[in-house]
């Protein structure tokens, strides 16, 4: 559980750094107002607020986030959020219901765009090189 809580805290710090040092990320959050949370079914989690071009978080959960990522438990949450194949892990979690999303899915989609700034640039294999 500690690892999960630490990961949720570190997530804020990583995004703060991206917003500060990556102009594309700063542009992405500019003018955005969003409150969401990531939690377990038992109520362990973190509440995030994006406003005025920055992100803040607190360990207390709120009653009215625009969306919530609910993990079955802290171990599943850590495994999915820390997975190297993050998008595939996210989808596996949805399929197995280790992850249940509630709230506004349009905001979830926006959030996926934000987390893309935390991912390493995709390596293109020789087989995938194209004329485009």
């Amino acid at each position, binding site marked *: 559980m500690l690892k999960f809580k630490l990961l949720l805290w570190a997530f804020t710090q990583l995004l703060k750094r991206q917003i500060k040092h990556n102009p594309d990320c700063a542009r992405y959050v500019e003018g955005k107002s969003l409150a969401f949370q990531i939690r377990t079914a038992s109520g362990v989690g973190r509440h995030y607020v994006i406003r005025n071009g920055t992100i803040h978080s607190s360990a207390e959960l709120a009653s009215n986030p625009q969306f919530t990522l609910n993990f079955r438990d802290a171990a599943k949450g850590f495994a999915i959020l820390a997975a190297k194949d993050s998008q595939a892990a996210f989808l596996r979690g949805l399929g197995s219901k280790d992850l249940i999303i509630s709230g506004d*899915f349009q905001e979830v989609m926006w959030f996926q765009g934000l987390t893309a700034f935390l991912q390493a640039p995709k390596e293109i294999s020789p087989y995938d090189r194209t004329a485009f």
Partner: protein
Amino acid sequence: MTENHLTTPTRFVDVGGAKIAYRRWGNAKAGQPPLLFLQHFRGGMDHWDPLMTDGLAEGREVILYNGRGIASSGGQARTRIEEMADDAAAFVRTLGLEQIDVLGFSLGGFQALDLTWRHPTLVRKLMLLGTGPRGGDPAMETPVLTAAARPAPVFEDFLYLFFGKSAQAEQAARAFWARRHQRVEQDPPSSPEVARAQIEANMLYLPRLSEEDPFAYLRGIQQPTFILNGVNDVMIPTVNSFYMVRNLPNAQLFIYPDSGHAAQFQYPQRFLHHAAHFLSE
């Protein structure tokens, strides 16, 4: 044929308590099943290319349809693809039709595939354009998240999302854009609730049904199937079309050059030629 894409009236039918909008016209004497069109994310009946619909209507009836909650249809928008597919099946049965051909584009392709899978006796032939299977490759380009979700998408969004990158592709996009606005009596746009519901449906369509063999379910779909994509689809990666053609037993795959998600809108005449041949053979 007296009616066409620009003149045929919008009709309504009650399906499961919702007032569903549709347009139906074409050659009813050709001895071919009607062709049902299932549209993309947020799209309604006015987002089809008249050149495509009228061209296909020469050889059969065509039916454009707004699903529950979409544009001029009543009811609450569905949040699951399987429910959208079941709605489409109920709509077809309400019209008194025993069998149809079905054409789905993008999110409409998800529905067309599920419609055929869940209601196999209802579908004779299946056309899948710019779409993918359950459990396919979800790796859309990041700018898609912004462009596709914009409250009122503009031409530049459609150009990026649907077409190729060349000057010729842009010219084709402008021609398509002009054609699709020719109809005077246009549907209202879909509501923000529709966008949210369909994004949820899209996200929940992406997990694999089986980690070991994700496309096994396709192998039970026996209908002759026409698959088309552009060579560089930024929304639903083109490789998904390859996954489908390898697993649908009676499928054939077309990949058009210098094109993206909506290859049929970029090359309408080429598409019409291929599609009419497929449907009539």
